[in-house]
């Protein structure tokens, strides 16, 4: 056989394998409003940058007539590419091939690219679209999942791991995304659950649709399992690309520097926060007033919205923002918001991203449901995450910082490097009303007009303690600043923290209150 013929043979083999499950299956995938796996990886990567490996991998299963079945690429695509020039490793399950089911060779392809990502220290992106374990391959399929989970854990905190749910992801399969750093979902396409509607109906007799059980909205609003919600696959890929632009390739690097830009003039920092601490505002406007180009990339926007997390740039460098949101539940800390912020802080710390915390909270959410849901344990995660974080930590107290909430929100006591407070800050053991009721209980009770006395005492307390100067007198606050000075001081703080190094006691690892 001449060279030409051999090349021709390669072309034929390729052509066949690239068809995945064949024209009919591709038609079905398209009819469901879904892109094919190959279309997905190609549109996610920079033009012409995606290169596929293991195209000719075949399964070894013999039982249940599997030896007669050809599954091209064993139902998964793996490869490398670039996103905005950043190298990435990818895998994408191909639903057109045996429903994207995970068999031994399918898993081996995934673990191959995962090992590669960890070795090359580049981000890993996994696109999930699979019916689950390939039942015909039995325990080999389970082994495959286990090998993937192990690598997810090993890579955690070393390389960014991104999961994109573009189809079903059910049963054990959900745990790979759950172990990764960011989960992207698309409305009406993503479905994630441990036990599906079928099992729930037969075992429990309860009727629920896939969408209501584990659709994109459910995981974005209720469970908090997803980090980014999109209306279409195209929008989802734009979100992934944007995230990749904000985060470093691995834990030894810093995020790429961009051209510094001034915030947009429509965000006037001194006109956002009302003076009355009981009135709400959108804290994201404050973030937009300090970050480059007013570009704030929010994470988990729809879940636990009483705390805001996300990335922005300052002087071109990526910064992680954590901010209480007075617009939702008065910005209180509770079970979900503590969980949300704590995990984000640990991510920033692992990947060398400085953290800016904006504080305005009345404290913890009171309630039996909160106490019984374990707000003690979950709240402790936030203290843990801030305390162990060694990246530069800057705190700006905008208004209220009462009680335990003050301590938890990156206070000096948890080793914030810079603590600034606006003149509107109220740093106190609790809100004036509550404090006056306790301290002046006797006077109020014994007064002829208790209501009048209460008001007077609240005012007394307010005048004396509801300000930043008591904390500033002890050095807990480094500087009381005008709102307009915020960006300038933060930029300076970031600049002087560039070589920050902290020595922590030697240990294998801490025991955070998981």
């Amino acid at each position, binding site marked *: 056989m001449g060279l030409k013929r051999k090349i021709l043979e390669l072309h034929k083999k390729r052509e066949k394998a690239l068809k995945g499950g064949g024209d009919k299956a591709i038609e079905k995938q398209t009819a469901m409003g879904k892109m094919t796996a190959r279309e997905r990886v190609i549109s996610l990567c920079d033009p012409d940058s995606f290169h596929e490996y293991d195209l000719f991998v075949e399964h070894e299963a013999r039982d249940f007539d599997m030896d007669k079945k050809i599954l091209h690429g064993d139902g998964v695509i793996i490869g490398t590419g670039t996103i905005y020039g950043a190298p990435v490793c990818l895998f994408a399950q191909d639903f057109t091939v045996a429903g994207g089911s995970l068999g031994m060779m399918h898993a081996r392809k995934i673990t191959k690219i995962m090992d590669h990502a960890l070795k090359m220290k580049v981000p890993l992106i996994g696109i999930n679209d699979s019916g689950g374990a390939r039942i015909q391959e039995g325990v080999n399929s389970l082994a495959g999942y286990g090998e993937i989970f192990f690598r997810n854990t090993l890579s955690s905190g070393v390389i960014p791991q991104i999961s994109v749910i573009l189809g079903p992801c059910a049963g054990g399969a959900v745990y790979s995304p759950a172990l990764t750093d960011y989960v992207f979902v698309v409305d009406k396409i993503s479905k994630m659950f441990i036990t599906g509607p079928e099992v729930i109906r037969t*075992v*429990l*007799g*309860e009727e629920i649709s896939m969408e209501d059980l584990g659709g994109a909205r459910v995981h974005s*609003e*209720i469970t908090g399992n997803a980090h980014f919600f999109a209306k279409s696959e195209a929008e989802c890929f734009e979100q992934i690309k944007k995230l990749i632009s904000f985060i470093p390739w691995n834990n030894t690097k810093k995020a790429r520097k961009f051209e510094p830009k001034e915030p947009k003039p429509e965000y006037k920092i001194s*006109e956002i926060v*009302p*003076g*009355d601490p*009981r*009135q*709400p*505002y*959108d804290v994201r406007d404050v973030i937009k007033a300090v970050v480059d180009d007013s570009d704030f990339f929010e994470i988990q926007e729809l879940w636990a*919205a*009483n705390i805001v997390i996300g990335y922005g740039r300052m002087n071109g460098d990526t910064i992680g923002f954590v901010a209480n949101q*007075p*617009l*939702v*539940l*008065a*910005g*209180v800390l509770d079970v*979900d918001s503590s969980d949300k912020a704590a995990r984000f802080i640990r991510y920033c710390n692992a990947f060398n991203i400085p953290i800016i915390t904006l504080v305005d909270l*009345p*404290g913890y*959410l*009171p*309630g*039996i*449901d909160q106490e*019984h849901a374990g707000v003690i344990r979950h709240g402790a995660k936030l203290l843990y995450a801030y305390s162990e974080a060694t990246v530069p930590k800057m705190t700006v107290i905008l208004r209220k910082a*009462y009680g335990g909430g003050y301590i938890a929100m990156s206070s000096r006591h948890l080793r914030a490097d810079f603590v600034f407070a606006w003149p509107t800050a109220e740093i106190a053991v*609790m*809100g*004036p*009303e*509550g*404090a006056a*009721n306790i301290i002046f209980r006797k006077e109020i009770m014994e007064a002829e007009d208790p209501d009048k006395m209460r008001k007077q005492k609240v005012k007394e307390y307010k005048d004396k303690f509801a300000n930043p100067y008591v904390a500033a007198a002890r050095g807990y606050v480094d500087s009381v600043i005008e709102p307009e000075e915020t960006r300038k001081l933060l930029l300076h703080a970031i600049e002087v923290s560039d070589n920050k190094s902290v020595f922590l006691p030697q240990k294998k690892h801490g025991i955070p209150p998981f």
Partner: protein
Amino acid sequence: MEKSDCEDKKIRCKSLFIDGTKYRTTLNKKYEKRKPWSKLEKNKIISVIPGTILKIYVTEGQCVKKGDNLIVLEAMKMLNLIKSPLEGIIKSIKLKEGEKVSKGKLMIEIGYT
């Protein structure tokens, strides 16, 4: 600028009391849907897991001692034998053999003697 986002952006704000202070804010779904707490009543036998009632050992009006068998509830492929937590009279039985029960359903109420 003392106008808050409630007026500015026409967001429907509600009140939330924390430490005696009334804050204007929005409430999320989870907060609004939270269930009021109620004390666990020992004489009310509630299903802690959804499943199927395979057997009922008692009848209404029957006296039971602590530890007497009440029901077999099959759930997650396990036969769960539910025993009486106290001494009393079976006041009411809210289900039949073969019936499927959801989680949190009142199955049997025991009256104190």
